[in-house]
């Protein structure tokens, strides 16, 4: 086995390549994509991935509904998206071909598992005739590979049952594509050995299939060119390829360490947030407690209880769960206790598109509670940056004793990118002291503890946890008297407390970084304002527009409430502002209301991230006057 192509084939250098694996839910496409990504990451490419799978555990085999896909871009330079139109589509069955082929770049490469193009599958996919034979694919480079047959063949002597052997065909595909793009094989082969160490038969079959695929590329005389994508010139450091949910989970573990308090997670499973619960439940040795509650209300309730007890309390969920947690989050606002509410957004409304991405919970995060219940909102903008976002959200929650909503989404959650590991010692200290002493005197001059006596700068109240002698006090959701925290129905006090709660959150603007900007900051004709996971697409789309000479700047918000103190100035610096969002215009409404800036909304609600091309088009449209508009 060698990593260089055979002599017969020409080797072309590419800056980047976009590959899309597609097959039936049972075909293991996610795994295949994942392995390809990891091999590329370890090889030193920059990359970005986009897994897409159906909501069902296993949708009917062979149907369009059952197609599972994985797209990734690998590059020899800094990239920020999984790419727009794939250069190569690997289609394991007719349904996958039918559903995905429209995405392919003009003249792109299609590699199909020829064996699967038999009548039953064709008809399930809705093909009257085989597309392999009817010239409908003539605009592409089509490679027909009998993957099942060869895989079964090479597994014959391994003592693997034919049905099980067939299951390894995804490794055949992986081997073939790995050959085509000069991916190192060791990483994958090692992984197979480790992963299936308890199932030697499976390991053997997968290994054989991989090698057969690789060899097929090298020997079959089908492919006349193979491609090389050189390692990227990334900044020095130690890298790992990480998805957003893992980065976020590790960020929470880190936040607990940095805050020097135990982490408590109260959660109820829901796609695409469950993996944070799964990941955190593995790290009990960090003192992390995870609790799978009976529902989302109990999940956030338990977290609030843990916060009262002095933990770094977290609850993770997606939109439907946040909708259920609203009342308890309102209580947390009133109690002024630190609490992290993490929303991995997905397509809505209602059950919506559970496995697809969307960023339409921003308004709910702002306003999804009764009464005046302001709280800070932080949004992650890339898979790896979820780590940092979690620590930042925790910092704010702890320092200001407030619930914080941290927004991520399905795209960040499941997508991966290389992450340069931070130096643990350089991470910030986010610890805050518990109250240990009385902080006032009563009318008789006796020392007393006032649970709502605020820090004059942060306006945070003391965090006095049970077990602290002398500081016994009661808190509750009825309006509290300023300072004492006793129940008060006094009109003036209610106004004061409402003002104070608002001022506390508003004041955080002075404690967060200035707006993150990029592009033609000083002389752009247009500002693209974004938040959350659109960062990658905007970066890539803007690059394209600037390469054509357009003057464009990009401002990206990591803090949605309060906004960075300079945001108003930033917005006013540019003649035009567009706000591309994966919703119907939520951030644009917020900035319009706040700054009276005619920020035009660009919207996409299709369960998929923006492509760089869509952003590019939006930029050009805005610059040429066809501003705003949807999609």
């Amino acid at each position, binding site marked *: 086995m060698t990593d260089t192509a055979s002599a017969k084939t020409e080797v072309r250098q590419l800056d980047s390549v976009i590959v899309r694996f597609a097959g039936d839910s049972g075909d293991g496409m996610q795994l295949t994509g994942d392995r390809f990504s990891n091999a590329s990451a370890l090889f030193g490419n920059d990359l970005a991935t986009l897994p897409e799978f159906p909501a069902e555990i296993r949708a009917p085999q062979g149907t369009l509904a059952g197609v599972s896909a994985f797209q990734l871009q690998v590059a020899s330079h800094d990239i920020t998206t999984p790419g727009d139109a794939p250069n190569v589509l690997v289609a394991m069955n007719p349904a996958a071909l039918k559903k995905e082929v429209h995405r392919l770049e003009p003249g792109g490469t299609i590699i199909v598992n020829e064996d699967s193009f038999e009548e039953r599958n064709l008809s399930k996919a809705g093909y009257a005739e085989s597309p392999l034979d009817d010239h409908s694919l003539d605009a592409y480079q089509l490679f027909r590979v009998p993957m099942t047959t060869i895989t079964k063949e090479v597994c014959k002597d391994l003592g693997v049952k034919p049905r099980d052997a067939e299951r390894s065909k995804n490794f055949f595909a992986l081997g073939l594509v790995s050959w085509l793009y000069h991916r190192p094989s060791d990483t994958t082969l090692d992984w197979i050995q480790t992963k299936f160490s308890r199932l030697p038969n499976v390991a053997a079959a997968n290994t054989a299939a991989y090698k057969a695929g690789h060899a097929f590329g090298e020997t079959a005389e089908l492919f006349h060119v193979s491609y090389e994508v050189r390692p990227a010139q*990334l900044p020095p450091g130690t890298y790992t390829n990480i998805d957003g949910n893992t980065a976020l989970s590790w960020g929470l573990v880190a936040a607990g360490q940095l805050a020097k308090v135990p982490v408590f997670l109260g959660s109820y499973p829901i796609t695409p947030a469950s993996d944070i619960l799964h990941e955190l439940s593995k790290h*009990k040795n960090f003192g992390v407690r995870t609790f799978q509650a009976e529902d989302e209300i109990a999940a956030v309730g338990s977290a609030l209880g843990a916060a009262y007890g002095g933990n770094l309390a977290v609850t993770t969920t997606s939109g439907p769960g946040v909708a259920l947690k609203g009342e308890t989050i309102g209580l947390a606002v009133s109690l002024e206790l630190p609490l992290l509410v993490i929303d991995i957004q997905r397509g809505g409304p209602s059950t919506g598109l559970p496995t697809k991405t969307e960023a339409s919970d921003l308004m709910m995060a702002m306003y999804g509670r009764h009464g005046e219940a302001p709280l800070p909102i932080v949004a992650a903008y890339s898979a790896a940056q979820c780590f940092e976002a979690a620590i930042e959200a925790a910092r704010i929650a702890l320092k200001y004793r407030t619930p914080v909503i941290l927004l991520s989404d399905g795209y960040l959650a499941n997508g991966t990118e290389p992450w340069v590991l931070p130096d643990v010692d350089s991470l910030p200290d986010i610890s805050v002291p518990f109250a240990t002493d009385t902080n006032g005197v009563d009318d008789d001059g006796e020392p007393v503890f006032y649970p709502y006596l605020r820090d004059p700068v942060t306006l945070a109240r003391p965090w006095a946890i049970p077990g602290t002698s002398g500081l016994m006090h009661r808190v509750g959701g009825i309006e509290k008297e300023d300072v004492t925290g006793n129940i008060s129905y006094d009109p003036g006090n209610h106004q004061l407390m409402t003002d104070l709660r608002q001022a506390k959150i508003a004041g955080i603007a002075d404690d967060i970084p200035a707006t993150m900007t990029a592009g033609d900051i000083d002389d752009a004709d247009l500002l693209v304002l974004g938040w959350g996971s659109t960062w990658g697409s905007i970066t890539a789309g803007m690059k394209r527009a600037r390469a054509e000479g357009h003057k464009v700047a990009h401002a990206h918000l990591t803090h949605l409430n309060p906004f960075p103190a300079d945001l108003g100035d930033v917005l006013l610096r540019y003649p035009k502002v567009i706000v591309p969002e994966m919703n119907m215009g939520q951030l644009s409404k917020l900035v319009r209301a706040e700054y009276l800036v005619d920020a035009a909304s660009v919207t996409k609600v299709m369960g998929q991230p923006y492509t760089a091309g869509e952003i590019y088009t939006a930029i050009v449209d805005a610059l040429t006057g066809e501003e705003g508009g949807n999609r």
Partner: protein
Amino acid sequence: MTDVVVPETSKTDWTSDQEPRWCPGCGDYSILTAIQLMMPEMGLRREDTVFISGIGCAARFPYYMNTYGMHSIHGRSPAIATGLALARPDLNIFVVGGDGDMLSIGGNHLIHVLRRNVNLTILLFNNQIYGLTKGQYSPTSEIGKVTKSTPLGSLDEPFNPVSLALGAEASFVARTHDMDRQHMQEMIRQAHDHDGSALVEVFQNCNVFNDGAFGAITKKAHRAEMLIDLQAGQPVRFGPDLNKGVVLDPSGCATIVDVTPENEASVIVHDPSHPDPSLSFALSRLSSGPYEPTPVGVFRSVRRPDYAGEVSRQLANAQDTKGPGDLGKLLNSRPTWTV
């Protein structure tokens, strides 16, 4: 928190500076007094004690205890207390709420806390009415109850909180009433001593919206006839001269009989610690409303690992096995490459 001797306290030490805001004559007052008197006896520290409640008249309770406390939102106290108990297994946590709070909106949290056996002492003040919202029927109100929301009478079969708790795998269930301070205190003591979730149903009179709901059984004059005092290891007998007893009929139901020398041996001997809750359940079915002889006392008390303790144990084990968490190691735990 520290291991010095718990200082002696008195009722006033446990009394906060907030004046109770219940209606004059409300049964909640006597429960408050019973508990405030009881705390010093149980040898608890105020700073290690927390009262968590939801919303309702009963749920005002924490304000009046000079301990830590949280008056949370309607129905959620068991969930909030669960988080606190898991985070802080060192605390004594009491959960207080009404029949609406704990059995209507909060019913699910209650049954889940009971099955999990979280270390909480749960006091359910059952007045068979919504007090704070001024008199609607509750999940324990009798069928036909005329209230503001049911002018023609309610139609819903009520819960029997003891049966429900037993069906939900509760490890400790007791019942008492607001007219008998000593009995209340005894139940609360046993509940507090129990490892895991302990539910105490307290019959509580709401003299404004449901006055005398329990009068037929709790009035001094009726008690001997109408209260069946369950005592561990004792035959289940009651009546002025203990002339009544409870036996199991062939269909497995608990039935009241006049005790005779012939049937005396068949009177049930109460065993709250039996691993199978069937007999406790049968006893809970003796009365379906407070007009028949009604058992009070501890129905069930079995040892089962406390949930918070188990969670802590898993953490300790993980640390023993994997060593304490090392952030640098964690970040490097996936394949890495260096540029």
